[in-house]
């Protein structure tokens, strides 16, 4: 009974759900995320599902997972090893139990351990009984039985009843983590209740009952000796919402358009894992975001270039293989010096590779994947919520410098979610000053020169079609440094090539300085970028807490590098760059700073765990 289950304060709990991809793992995961967030915890989650739409039921390949960390402090990753694993079938147990931390809890549905199900994954005998799981705190619960009991008197097919097991589990967890059950009950009403989009009273009723049954089970079953109690995290005051990186980027696109006074435009083509961004953005017609799903990626970016030429704030969104198809047209935007934001949600490569898995292996493609000397700024988002700011900043720089900008996110932060402090439109930086279209009335007596530049930003004067009296021609052949007319003059090409390069290099000067996490100097500096931010931040914090001479620095802009990076690097004995690739940032750092940067490389379709970074640093510290 509740009385004798003691309530232990804890700072962080890592939970993982695993089951058949048809079993709604992502759903239940998101529910617990919301529940914890609403309760004031900070949360970070990592979905992980098979690339097949419907992998065969009950197989390892078919296991869909969702891991999350909840804490009473800022949480940077979905955690290393789960404290609690909820595994709905034998396949899930087989697939995920090995990740659970020693002594951790494994909650599973004993009803699903049928002969057939077990042999399908190669269990000769029942792992719940044969000691396979010794070392873990296994809670084998006959979920179907209990749920069916709870819904005994309800008129619905057993299959439908069984589906309520998810809310039954939510009940157990709600009790286990000492959360407010009301939030879940409200949620059920919102989703299925009379006021919901399509009310399903029966389902509402059934899930409510199953949930309560779960709550009771937790309280009454003697099997739980302890409960976890998480205090609220000290988050910045404000309105919060749990959001995925793709959704955050979609919102940033619409917001940036509105704050720049330009029509936001997306020209795109679906591709995993970037597609969700397009899905969400397609709903924003009412704020005037125009989305064109084109016939392919090339048309996607080309329509965006056209819209930019017409004076829209244009974006194109994609993932790895799609980016490689956009390279030629990206070069066009570059030589036309039109603002364009390319959002690339990185995935496992090369080629089709691992479409649903995360990786950071498009960095060098983003840097160099175009013919000719053609550099463009690259900004990387470091968390799901940060995708909003990164995309917004990318748009600002694209406008201010009249250049294509690449925003790099990845499958992990694009599909993962975390709480996001929702800004109000008023708070967001006004982007209209960066638009300043060239209009004759603002330049009495001047003649328009398409490639005359702002001396500071080197941004060219930009007049859009429809502007009275300044019709002009530009194109993709090399052009005169002032008039923009086609020029084959040798020195002009030298000047233009250097100018295009300088434009990006100069940006460094005005970029925010890189901030050091930890001391200004020391033994090891760990450099993170994009999705590795969380694991590195968490790892460095723990290393510092352990008194190690370690500091961290995160690159928001990956190109150009922040102005003070070289200086920072010079103050450490060793430099480590953990990356989900074969050492792409390392190679840029090495060539720029001539420092023997050590690369911690992981290409397993999976983000870093804090301990992986910690172990490597300790190795470098010789400990």
């Amino acid at each position, binding site marked *: 009974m509740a009385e004798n289950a003691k309530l232990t304060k804890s700072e962080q709990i890592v939970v993982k759900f695993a089951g058949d991809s048809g079993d709604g793992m992502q759903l239940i995961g998101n529910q617990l995320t919301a529940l914890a*967030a*609403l309760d*004031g915890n900070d949360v970070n989650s990592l979905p992980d599902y098979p690339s097949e739409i419907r992998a065969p039921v009950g197989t390892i390949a078919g296991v869909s997972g969702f891991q999350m960390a909840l804490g009473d402090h800022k949480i940077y990753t979905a955690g290393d090893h789960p404290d609690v694993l909820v595994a709905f079938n034998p396949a899930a147990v087989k697939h995920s139990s090995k990740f659970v931390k020693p002594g951790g809890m494994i909650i599973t549905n004993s009803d699903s351990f049928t002969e057939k199900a077990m042999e399908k994954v190669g269990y000769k005998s029942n792992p719940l009984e044969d000691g396979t799981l010794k070392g873990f705190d296994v809670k084998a619960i006959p979920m179907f039985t209990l749920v069916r009991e709870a819904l005994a008197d309800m008129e619905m097919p057993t299959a439908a009843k069984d589906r309520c097991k998810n809310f039954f589990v939510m009940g157990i967890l709600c009790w286990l983590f000492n959360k407010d059950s009301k939030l879940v009950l409200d949620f059920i009403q919102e989703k299925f209740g009379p006021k919901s989009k399509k009310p399903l009273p029966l389902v509402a009723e059934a899930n409510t009952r199953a949930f309560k049954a779960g709550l009771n089970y937790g309280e009454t079953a003697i099997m739980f000796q302890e409960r976890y109690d998480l205090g*609220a995290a000290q*988050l910045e*005051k*404000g*309105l*919060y*919402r*749990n959001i995925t990186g793709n959704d955050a980027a979609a*919102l940033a696109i*619409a917001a940036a358009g*509105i704050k720049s006074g330009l*029509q936001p*435009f997306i020209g795109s083509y679906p591709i995993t894992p970037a597609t969700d961004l397009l899905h969400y953005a397609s709903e924003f*017609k*009412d*704020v*005037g975001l*125009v989305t*064109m799903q*084109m*016939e392919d990626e*090339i*048309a996607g970016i*080309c*329509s*965006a*270039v*056209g*819209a930019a*030429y*017409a*004076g*829209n704030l*244009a974006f194109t969104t994609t993932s790895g293989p799609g980016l490689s198809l956009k390279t*030629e*047209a990206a070069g*066009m935007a570059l030589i*036309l010096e039109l603002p364009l934001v390319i959002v690339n949600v990185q995935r496992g490569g090369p080629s089709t590779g691992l479409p649903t898995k995360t990786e950071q292996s498009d960095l060098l493609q983003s840097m160099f994947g175009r013919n000719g000397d053609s550099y463009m700024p690259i900004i990387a988002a470091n968390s799901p919520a940060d995708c909003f700011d990164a995309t917004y900043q990318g748009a600002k720089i694209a406008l201010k410098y009249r250049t294509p900008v690449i925003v790099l996110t990845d499958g992990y932060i694009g599909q993962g979610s975390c709480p996001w402090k*929702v800004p*109000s*439109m008023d708070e967001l930086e006004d982007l209209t000053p960066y638009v300043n279209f060239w209009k004759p009335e603002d330049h009495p007596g001047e003649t328009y020169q398409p490639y005359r530049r702002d001396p500071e930003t080197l941004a060219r004067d930009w007049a*859009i*079609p*429809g*502007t*009275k*009296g*300044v*019709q*002009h*021609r*530009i*194109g*993709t*052949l090399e052009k005169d440094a002032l008039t923009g*007319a*086609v020029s084959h003059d040798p020195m002009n090409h030298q000047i233009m090539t250097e100018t295009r390069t300088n434009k990006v290099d100069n940006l460094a000067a005005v970029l925010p300085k890189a901030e050091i996490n930890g001391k200004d100097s020391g033994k090891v500096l760990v450099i993170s970028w994009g999705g590795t931010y969380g694991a590195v931040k968490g790892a460095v914090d723990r290393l510092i807490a352990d008194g190690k001479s370690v500091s961290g620095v995160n690159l928001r802009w990956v190109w150009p590098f922040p102005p003070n990076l070289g200086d920072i690097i010079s103050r450490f004995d060793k430099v480590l760059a953990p990356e989900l690739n074969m050492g792409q940032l390392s190679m840029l750092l090495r060539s720029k700073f001539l420092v023997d940067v050590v690369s911690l490389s992981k290409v397993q379709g999976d983000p870093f765990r804090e301990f992986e970074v910690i172990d490597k640093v300790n190795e470098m510290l010789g400990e």
Partner: protein
Amino acid sequence: MAETQLTRKDFASDAEVKWCPGCGDYAIMNAVRDGMIAAGKPRDEVAIVSGIGCSSRFPYYMETYGLHTIHGRAAAIASGVKVGNPKLDVWVISGDGDSTAIGGNHFMHAIRRNINLNYVLINNKIYGLTKGQYSPTSEMGQRSKTSPYGVIDYPMTPLKVAMGLGATFIARGLDSIMKLSSEICIRGAKHHGLSMMEIFSNCVIYNDGAHKQLSDKAEGPNHRIILTHGEKMIYGADNQFCLVQAGFGIKKANVADVAEADILVHDEKNAELATLLAGMRPDAGLPVALGIIYADDSKKTYDDMVYEQVNAVKAKLGRTMDQLMQEGHTWTV
């Protein structure tokens, strides 16, 4: 405003035209200027988008907004320009290689979407700028730098493909028949929807005489028919030939041999007829159809529908950006 009294000269930029003397593109440029004059838009509300090719140098020579882009992508880029700002009068100028080879996919989908573009396909049946390789519109057996022993690809008939994609306006002109090209560009400019205007051009350097069969003073009239809505399909140097129906097809006949009533009458609004006319080829004993083959203003354009939908959603949901950002589960700390 003065803009309405514009002349061809007004549409000439000060850039020196760099086509070879005798290139068919000169005549076509004048026709396009006539079309723009007829459309009556001020020059600073006209945008020309081209790909890469001799023909794609076009925008540089026009006193309008012009964008010389990359090879094959003009239709996709122009789609973005038009949707980005529907007030603009947007023209696409593209060669046969630019449109039917590397640009084939965008050519197809721009037509399918019926985006309100004026699309001039300058067909000289060769890659001119790259100095003479065969293109998808080159004839079987044609010798070129990359087909020294003759082309073995079947030629493509762009307008026939266009009809297969539900085109709402197709027309075909010939550089040497200036007046016709102008008419086509004028009608095309006014058409609401994508106007696909294929104009045959003579590349004097790499494919000279490619259209001789049609342009020949004496013989030309016997291998081409210039269509006029509502008029009988009679052609030939001495109006001696005509077209009559044969099953679901068309066949050539001597005016002398058929009842007048059997001679087909051109109907711009008949899609089935247009499909047949677009596909007529001399090697099948039929004349090449010139003039306005099909014109149907009744289909909505993609760009219209984009904004209809935007406005409908504004009216129906009308969320503000702040509301969008605050959607879903939110909580305050």
